[in-house]
């Protein structure tokens, strides 16, 4: 009876969730799991808008902040411009394994970032999507050392940190829009690029790329954000249900990643790509000593970085 009266008083809502990805993407998996849990525990439901129908990821962050959009799933680097402290998660080699990603985002550091984002950007991170490391692919030769990398033309998105990272490794990467990438690889305008294994598989890059190098400088986090003003309009029970649905979606995302990444790797090797392990000692050294200092200020100081490193039992920077 109590449950019945509760649901009578709460207004059933249909939320809008914006996604950059299409059906079958990791974003889609997180969103559907979230909606499933939401529908199970509230009267609310949600509709997904795929393929950036509601605008680019950065626009959806703005829309959510203003309160004209309820939810959006975006790559973490599209939150950084609105809440710079989140940038700590995008520093090269800050996260070196899925376990570390889970430890940071679900621990006290993650909670601090959630609060910062509410304060700075007016949006609340309700779930973390884990999409794996960007591995390096190219069409020319196996890349196992920094010396192998020399002379390759590598495409990167228009992202300062990624550009700086490649520069620290001794090459000048080519920033290029995603839409022209496939053709550019095919025509050998660029030799290589980096992307998650799952994305390499779904984008069929194996048709134009031969070698894969297992590097771990960039772990893709795709949090699901909610408009804080919309969140505050919800009843306490619904707020609790939303956060709980978010937690379950987060856990589901990690499981989904492990499964799909293994499948993608096997499939790409089966289709004829070569998989190379990389000794990343020098890669890590260059990136952390040359790139990190540039971003100390924007992520909130060296101390914040050391707090995170301590929590992961890693050596601090000085």
């Amino acid at each position: 009876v109590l449950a019945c009266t509760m649901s009578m008083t709460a207004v059933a809502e249909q939320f809008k969730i914006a996604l950059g990805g299409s059906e079958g993407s990791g974003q889609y998996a997180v969103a559907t799991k979230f909606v499933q849990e939401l529908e199970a525990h509230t009267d609310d439901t949600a509709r997904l808008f795929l393929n950036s129908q509601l605008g680019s990821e950065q626009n959806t962050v703005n829309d959510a902040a203003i309160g004209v959009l309820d939810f959006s799933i975006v790559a973490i680097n599209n939150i950084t411009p609105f809440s710079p402290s989140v940038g700590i998660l995008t520093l090269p080699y800050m996260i070196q394994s899925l376990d570390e990603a889970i430890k940071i985002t679900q621990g006290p550091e993650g909670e601090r970032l959630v609060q910062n984002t509410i304060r700075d950007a007016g949006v609340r991170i309700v779930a973390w999507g884990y999409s794996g490391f960007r591995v390096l692919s190219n069409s020319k030769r196996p890349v196992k050392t920094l010396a192998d990398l020399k002379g390759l033309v590598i495409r990167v998105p228009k992202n300062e940190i990624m550009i700086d990272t490649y520069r620290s490794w001794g090459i000048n990467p080519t920033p290029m829009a995603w839409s022209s990438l496939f053709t550019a690889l095919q025509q050998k305008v660029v030799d290589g690029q980096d992307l998650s294994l799952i994305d390499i598989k779904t984008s069929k890059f194996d048709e134009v790329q031969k070698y894969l190098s297992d590097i771990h400088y960039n772990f893709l986090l795709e949090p699901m954000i909610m408009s804080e003003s919309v969140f505050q309009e919800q009843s306490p029970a619904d707020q609790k249900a939303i956060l709980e649905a978010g937690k379950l979606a987060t856990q589901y995302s990690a499981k989904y990643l492990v499964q799909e990444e293994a499948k993608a790797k096997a499939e790409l090797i089966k289709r004829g790509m070569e998989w190379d392990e990389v000794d990343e000692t020098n890669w890590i050294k260059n990136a952390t000593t040359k790139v990190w200092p540039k971003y100390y200020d924007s992520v909130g100081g060296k101390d914040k970085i050391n707090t995170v490193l301590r929590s992961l039992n890693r050596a601090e920077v000085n």
Partner: protein
Amino acid sequence: MTETSIVLVLFGSFFVLLLMGAPISISLGVAALASYFYLGENPITFVQIAFTSVGSFPLMALPAFILAGALMEASGISKRLVNLAESFAGPVTGGISAAAVLACMFFGAISGSGPATTAAVGMLMIPAMANRGYDKGYASAVVASAGGLGIIIPPSIPMVIFGISAMGLAVPPEAIEKFGTFQSISISKMFIAGVIPGLVIALSLLVVNYFRCKRLGYKGTDEGWDFKHIARTMRSGFWSALAPLVILGGIYSGFFTPTESAIVAIFYTLFVGAFIHRELTWSAIFRSLETTTWLSGRIMLILFCATVFGRLLIENNIPAIVADSMLSLTDNIYLIWFLIIIFLLFVGMFMETLAAIMILTPVLLPVTYNLGIDPVQFGIVMICCLSIGFATPPLGENLFVASGISKVSLEEITVKALPFTLSSTVAVFVIAYFPEISLYLPRLFGY
């Protein structure tokens, strides 16, 4: 229920404003604003859309192609291309009017616009045809009908707009299950896909031209081919004939995006106009910049308003409703193509091409994808249909231009263009019913 009422508010206010004679852009914008108020939603998203709908790199191809085209006129490249085509006329029946069609194809390969093609070719070819005893009305009709090739043969401003309008569209999940993920449309791919359909339509025009000229007794020159003349126009037109290679070669080889290739074309034209033809003046450069300014300004204002309009359609699930009602009518793909083509030809009679593309793409593309029609092929058919609209009243831009040049009445040209309109329509049906015509070349180029 809300869906039907929102359609009434959105389209109702749009058509009322259009009939009152408000600018197309503002009709779209105000209709969208009215719908936001009606739905009780906050229209502040307009601000971001105003910025982001316009602020994209691929879209910069539009002013770049307009500027390149204007500069090519000023540099004497256009003139020489048309002369080159004219020199091939020779002793064939209907030779000079066939050369006019050829000139429109040549010109289409450097220009992205229909009326510009009509103007450039008509200015030289209509008097040339009249000199050889052609009826001026017929001469105008040929050029007005073939001018549409300017947007089918790449480069093409409507293709750029189609690619932009298709960006970020979503298709129903059932369609994805059947036909795979819906990827964004590459403008380069559109540019490759347009080549053969352009040739097919040109061929249909040439066939009709041949028979009509035969009946009208328009013979070629008695002397046969003038090889000296051909050689002369080829020599003088060498740098002009390179222009299409510069534009399309860069795109097809994958070295340049369409935007970049237009930029390269601009500097190529500046070089040829200033140092080889020595015809380019500072005042012509300023005039080209000025023309590009107001043309881009008004097109982009439409784009912003059409984007908000399209957003409302998507948020209210309208494309899916259209698809359902269409499928409830029939699921025969040929019949559906028939309905779509007739509808597009009808729209092309009244509506400005770019505005039509921006408004209709978000509605029709998801629908056709659901039916298994390749998005690129759909784009090509849509652009072919609208290109025919350049030569159909009441809004027939090519008719206006041709009539302006020849001083023949609009009505006369319209009637004399009718057989060409019909033959182009037949060609469009062929292009629609045989997808390979549009899709063979892109596949050959690895798209």
